[in-house]
């Protein structure tokens, strides 16, 4: 379970407060969506939770299954079960996708005291999972995300998620840059991973992704705070009326 309490975060370099007291609980098995206008702090939240540098937590806490996330290195957070699907997956020339994934899977296993996956077993599992995401063998061999289309990059994120089997998945604007077909494919991949012991936090600007990944709870974020929480109908309200009404209401 992901538990965020009164989280305040500022940019390290500029003295600029981005998150101003976020409270959020994501239970296992649930899909929470965070929506909000640009600049509301949605992506910052995802980066702070996954441990990216450049941010300073000035107040509050974030725990995963009771463990203090904010004290951990990014790799330890990953091993503890946290996964962030990036809005802009990073291209890494020279590192093969397959090598990257196998290194990651085995590093996490090692950190958890589990036995490493053999090359043969890994190959079998990845082929199976890649197939359902329509990722071909050629894409697995290529350097990480290099020369991938927007859709391929996002599918590759979901493949990583499927291989790493995290307990808490954060999807940061996974729908950005995707056409409808690509979005469906990605959503199917996410839905296939839904399970009673896995929580999701889906960050999105638009409602359309939520047509495919049905949320249990929807939060609206604005100016570094969650200003409204509701059911799936809240997302529809945003779709129909924009953020203006909700923001006005909150003030």
């Amino acid at each position, binding site marked *: 379970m992901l538990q965020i309490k009164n989280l305040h975060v500022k940019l390290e370099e500029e003295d600029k407060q981005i998150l101003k007291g976020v409270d959020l609980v994501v239970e296992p098995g649930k899909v929470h969506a965070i929506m909000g206008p640009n600049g509301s702090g949605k992506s910052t939240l995802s980066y702070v939770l*996954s*441990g*990216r*540098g450049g941010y300073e937590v000035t107040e509050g806490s974030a725990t995963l299954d009771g463990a203090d996330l904010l004290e951990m*290195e*990014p*790799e330890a*957070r*990953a*091993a503890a079960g946290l*996964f*962030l699907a*990036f809005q802009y*997956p*990073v*291209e*890494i*020339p*020279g*590192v093969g996708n397959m*090598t*990257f*994934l196998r*290194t*990651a*899977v085995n*590093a*996490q296993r090692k*950190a958890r005291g589990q036995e490493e996956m053999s090359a043969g077993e890994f190959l079998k599992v990845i082929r199976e999972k890649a197939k359902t995401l329509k990722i071909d063998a050629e894409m697995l061999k290529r*350097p990480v995300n290099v020369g991938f289309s927007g859709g391929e990059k996002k599918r590759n994120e979901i493949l*990583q998620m499927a291989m*790493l089997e995290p307990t808490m998945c954060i999807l940061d604007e996974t729908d950005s840059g995707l056409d409808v077909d690509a979005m469906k494919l990605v959503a199917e991949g996410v839905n296939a991973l839904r399970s009673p012991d896995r929580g999701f936090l889906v960050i999105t600007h638009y409602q359309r992704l939520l047509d495919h990944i049905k949320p249990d709870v929807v939060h609206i974020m604005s100016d570094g705070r969650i200003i409204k929480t509701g059911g799936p109908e809240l997302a529809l309200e945003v779709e129909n009326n924009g953020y203006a009404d909700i923001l006005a209401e909150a003030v």
Partner: protein
Amino acid sequence: MAQPQATQKQEALAARLAVLRLPTSGGWLSLARGLAETRLKGMGLPGRRDEYWRWTNPAVLIAPEPGPAQPYDARDEVPAFDAIDRVKLVFTDGVFHAAASDDPALAGVEVSRLAEASARDVHWAHELYGVLEAAGQKPVERPLAALNSAYATEGVLIRVTAKAEKPVHLIYNHESEVSDAILHHCVKVEEGAELTLLESGPAAARCNMVLEVLVADGASFHHVRTQGRDHDRQAVTHLFARLGEGCRFKSFTLTANGVMTRNEAVVELLGDDAVAHLAGAAMGDGDFHQDDTVFVTHDAERCESRQVFKKVLRNGAVGVFQGKILVKPGAQKTDGYQISQSLLLDEDSQFLAKPELEIYADDVSCSHGSTSGAIDDTALFYLRSRGVPERAAQSLLVLAFLAEALEEIEDEAIAEDIRSRLEGWLNRRMG
């Protein structure tokens, strides 16, 4: 100002020659040595004020005696190219070590020791020994190579007349703290023949090495060398190659550590449709100084040359690259490429690069680039966010940075040896 500098160079040479003796072998070799000595005396030894030595101080390379160097013990790693079926020729402190070497009987390959060359019929070497070196003295002087041609007593002469079944591996062991090795090798790959030459090891406390390679029409020469981990290495190497029509030439060098390593390569493409690739991957830490100086001359049509040099530097390490592509008049349809890059792991390290193109033909395609950069933080975070520990992530990115140079190794088994060696070094260093 010219006079004092010339005097200085001559004084340095006199001091150096005072502790050397011109070998008296007789025959063609004496003649070649005499000519080399004359060339050397016309030049003197390099000094700091030479443009070509602007970034690399030749002091330890020209000093009468080598600085002391701890023999390097690499017993904690698998010997280089150990898994590859090859003919091993071993030199210890620059002297051929027969007992440790294989019988060089290999179909289509004749191997002679330089030390026995005057006594044996190696007439082909007359046209090679010191000849490519002499040609390589223009337009830039390379006195340390001339010194080598004049004073080397050891080395191998290899003539290849067919496709060699397995690589020849020159292994250089270093046991004495004060050894000063001068090794000179000549390789002639006859028309249509093929050879892979491997080199590994620290050689001596100080080492001056020359390799002259003549690749005849339609022949192939593949060269892979490791200079690894011996901290005290003081080495200068010259590779001179002359390529005939339609031949393929590839040379790759892996360098780690070493307080002074200067690797020069001088390649002339004299036959049409020849291909020459030169690549280097270097990793340096602390008082590491490594210099790649490359001169590629296109003097024929439709030739291709590539220079790919990558250096990973940290803790004040210095990497130098001086690379030139000269396209002579008439060398139309030349395809020349040169890239030199450094990955600086901290702000103390330095990469000095001088990429040059000089083109006298109008229908050519040449490009060059040189960059310095740090580890990409975004990529590092991406890897870590997937559970890869920071050091392992850094190693992955370092290997990725070097990958383009490693890709120049054609043979998969040899490439794998280099790659796993590099990984081992990285893990030891960063683990």
